[in-house]
């Protein structure tokens, strides 16, 4: 199944590259969705199928829709294109920083003996019941904290995005 890893990796990197380089905003979001699905495929390959499904549910089903709504609410009348980008100092410096980071990370990863670790045989998918048991056994407080966080984010996002309407009335 080695070729599955390479194909899915190629799709994922292609999605990420297109998402940050395309001009048309909606096409960028579609490339981002391709990236999310590629990452979910990697999770399935790493035998974390519950996580892969949650990734599709949350990222493709909710975050991508959120980004599309934000694009729709912030587009100028002329269309979906953002302002024209110029290849100035900012672009080159940003790309240079990213390239330097990539080289440093590659050196750091390859110099560690951990990098040649091989997986121990073919494994079964983790069952959801095990995740549930681990969650309830020791991680209930983070669960409740996440619930409070999500509620706060929900209320906060509504308040922030809504406020101008109330003021203008």
């Amino acid at each position, binding site marked *: *199944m*080695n070729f599955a*890893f390479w194909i899915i990796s190629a799709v*994922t990197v292609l999605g*990420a590259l297109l*998402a*940050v380089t395309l001009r048309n*905003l909606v096409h960028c979001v579609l490339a*981002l969705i391709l*990236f999310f699905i590629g990452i979910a495929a*990697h*999770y399935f390959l*790493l*035998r*974390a199928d*519950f*996580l892969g499904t*949650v990734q599709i549910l949350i*990222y493709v089903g*909710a*975050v991508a829709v*959120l*980004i599309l*709504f*934000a694009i729709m609410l*912030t587009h*100028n009348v002329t269309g979906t294109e*953002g*302002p024209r980008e110029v290849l100035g100092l*900012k672009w080159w410096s*940003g*790309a240079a*920083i*990213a*390239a330097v*980071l*990539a080289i440093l*990370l*590659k050196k750091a*990863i*390859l110099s560690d003996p*951990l990098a*040649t*670790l*091989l*997986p121990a045989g*073919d494994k079964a998918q*983790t069952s959801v019941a*095990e995740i549930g048991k*681990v969650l309830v056994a020791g*991680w209930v407080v*983070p669960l409740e904290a996440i619930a409070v*966080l*999500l509620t706060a*984010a929900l209320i*906060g*996002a509504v308040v*922030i*995005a809504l406020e*101008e309407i109330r003021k203008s009335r």
Partner: protein
Amino acid sequence: MSIPLGHYLILAAILFTVGLAGALTRKNAIIVLMGIEVMFNSAILNLVAFWHYKHFAVPTAQLFAIFAIAIAAAESAIGLALVIAVYRHYQSVDVDEMQELKG
């Protein structure tokens, strides 16, 4: 499947730098947020790769990853709400125009 761990780590590093380049170079605030999402996802992929190769017996890392995905979703919701609010004020989502803190 006999992919060494290093391949997954390098894949996550490449995705992280692609996201970073996007977040640093683009002018549109929404694409900056999309670059941040790419960085989040690559970090979580890194975490899950380590879990698969070293701690496969206990699925705690999947839980960690689910919490991280939830936090990332909450953060992107707030970020996009802020972009909408700023758009209402500046009438554009160009990050170069958002230079003043005082409205």
